[in-house]
């Protein structure tokens, strides 16, 4: 007997929001790094993977040794993402990327692609090819039922995480002094420098924040999956699609785009499952056909 339209609509809505939150968390770091540094970070997927591995290792150590109250595991996941950011952020930005800042946008993509290749093998050397799990945190929040469908509480917590991250980012960028300086650098690097802003420091900070967000996505995805080689590769393409649809450099854009893509995917899977393979690219092509710079276009001065 076919599903009632109410149940169907509810399922699409809820699945869409859950998917959208995941997409937002995973993609927002990419758009931030592009906005500030003008770098399309191909290594974003690998940073996601490193975050997942780090969290899985930390969580495995913590629960394996039964070292304390279960809910502290979440803090540990957050902490491991922070550790990844504090180690890899400065290392990659100061150690590799800064030699290429004067170069073309496209050359930087090649640099980040090289970084992606290196990180993939580095990850394999450190963690091997086995599966790692971080599943205890997944079950801690129990189950929630909506319209007869059982959902895992953790997925709804991710919605909360996405909202918190989004709001903190928005607030940080728009209402704090540091944030406004970052916005200024996004808008016009040269004038900011002329006004005395230490652009180099802003770059380092922004990139590290981008790494943190990528690792955060990985850390909080780890409980739902088996962490093993290759998890970063799907993420690159999905994040890229979300970020392009939303407009490169725009955090609000990433949020709206995540919702677009999340709902499109949910609708496709529930209603036209064979289209699941293309739906993301179709949405991307459609949006770009009408708004070539994405939903939220950055205002840029035109140089004659």
């Amino acid at each position, binding site marked *: 007997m076919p599903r009632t339209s109410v149940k169907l609509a509810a399922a699409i809505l809820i699945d869409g929001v859950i998917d959208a939150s995941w997409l937002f968390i995973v993609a927002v770091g990419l758009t931030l790094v592009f906005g500030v540094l003008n770098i*399309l970070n191909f290594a974003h997927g690998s940073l996601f993977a490193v975050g997942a591995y780090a969290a899985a290792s930390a969580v495995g150590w913590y629960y394996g040794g039964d070292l304390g109250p279960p809910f502290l595991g979440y803090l540990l996941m957050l902490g491991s993402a922070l550790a990844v950011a504090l180690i890899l952020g400065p290392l990659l930005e100061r150690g*590799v990327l800064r*030699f*290429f800042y*004067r*170069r*073309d*946008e*496209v*050359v930087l*993509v*090649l*640099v980040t*692609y*090289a*970084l*992606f*290749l*290196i990180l*993939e*093998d*580095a990850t*394999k*050397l450190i963690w091997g090819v086995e599966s790692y799990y971080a599943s205890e945190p997944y079950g801690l929040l129990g189950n929630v039922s909506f319209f007869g469908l059982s959902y895992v509480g953790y997925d709804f917590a991710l919605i909360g995480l996405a909202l918190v991250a989004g709001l903190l980012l928005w607030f940080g960028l728009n209402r704090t002094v540091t944030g406004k300086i970052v916005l200024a650098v996004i808008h016009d690097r*040269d004038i900011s420098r002329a006004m005395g802003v230490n652009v180099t420091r802003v770059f380092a900070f922004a990139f590290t924040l981008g790494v943190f967000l990528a690792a955060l996505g990985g850390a909080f995805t780890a409980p739902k999956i088996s962490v093993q080689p290759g998890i970063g590769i799907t993420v690159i*393409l999905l994040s*890229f*699609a979300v970020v*392009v649809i939303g407009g*490169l450099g725009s955090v609000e854009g990433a949020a709206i785009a995540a919702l677009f893509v999340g709902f499109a995917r949910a609708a496709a899977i529930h209603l036209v499952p*064979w289209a699941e*393979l*293309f739906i993301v*690219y*179709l949405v*991307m*092509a459609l949006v*770009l*056909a009408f708004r*070539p*710079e*994405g939903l939220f276009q950055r205002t840029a001065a035109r140089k*004659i």
Partner: protein
Amino acid sequence: MAGIVGTLATAAIACAALALAGYAAPNWLVLVATLAFSKGLVALGIVALMRGGLVSFGQGTFYCAGAYAAGMAMRSLGIGDATVLVALGAIAGLILGVIIAPLLAGYRGIFFATLTLALSMIVYGILNKTYSLGGSDGLNLHAPTFFGYHPPRSQDASYALFLFTSLVTVVAAALCRIHFDSVRGLLSLAARDNEIRVEYLGASVRWVNGINFVIAAVLGGVGGALSALSLGHIDPDFAFWATSGEFVFLAILSGYVSVTAVFVAAILLELVRSFSSQYFPNTWQGALGVFLLLIILFLPGGLGSLALRLRPSGAKPVQASADKSE
């Protein structure tokens, strides 16, 4: 500029040199070079676009179209002649290019790149689900013939294909060089620098980019057909974003000054990839990444800039700056 005569002379010498090199080289190297040239052709198309300031991340579309055109012609129509198959690949690229160019000519920068990428992934998706074209497993082709010549042994087939590919490559490279040195070709460089001034001076940037796009599409189709013949296999991965990305990287690696550099870079990349795989089976990706970083670091203008440094001093060709103006 040496002009058309100089280019043609260089082309003739190149043909002879390649024929000799292919004869002397071991068989495995001949295949590597053949594949490298096929990929180099596609990268050359991207170089043509890059000269106008555009980067296409979706050349896989035309690469795939050329490969499948050749493949389906061989399987369904029984056509076995290499020249006909490659011509079909070129035509497939041309038709697709002419259709798509007007749609995309208005876009620039990263948005042009992403739209082309979306397009190629849609083609990938469609092919993945089309059982009659082999789905994700793809289709196998048999060895081609060359104007009726049926190579008897495997070594002969490899060498024949290498000669054929080299010939096509040299012709395409020569034509591109002539185009790049022509007025329209130089207009691309100007458009890359500042579109508004070019429009103000009376040329149409849309036309320039459109023509570059069609050139890239044709080269992509030819490269795809040649790859299909070398590998004996076609599959939807030809349109995958990673494949398109590889061509872009090749184009960036070689820079857009020298046409020869594209093919030298292609061979170099294939060799590095192959030797990384042999000596570092577990970490060949990382080795490749390190190699790429070193090249970008030490050769800012791409491999082509090496050729520039060997130029007789004094004559500096027109080259829009590869560096961002700060």
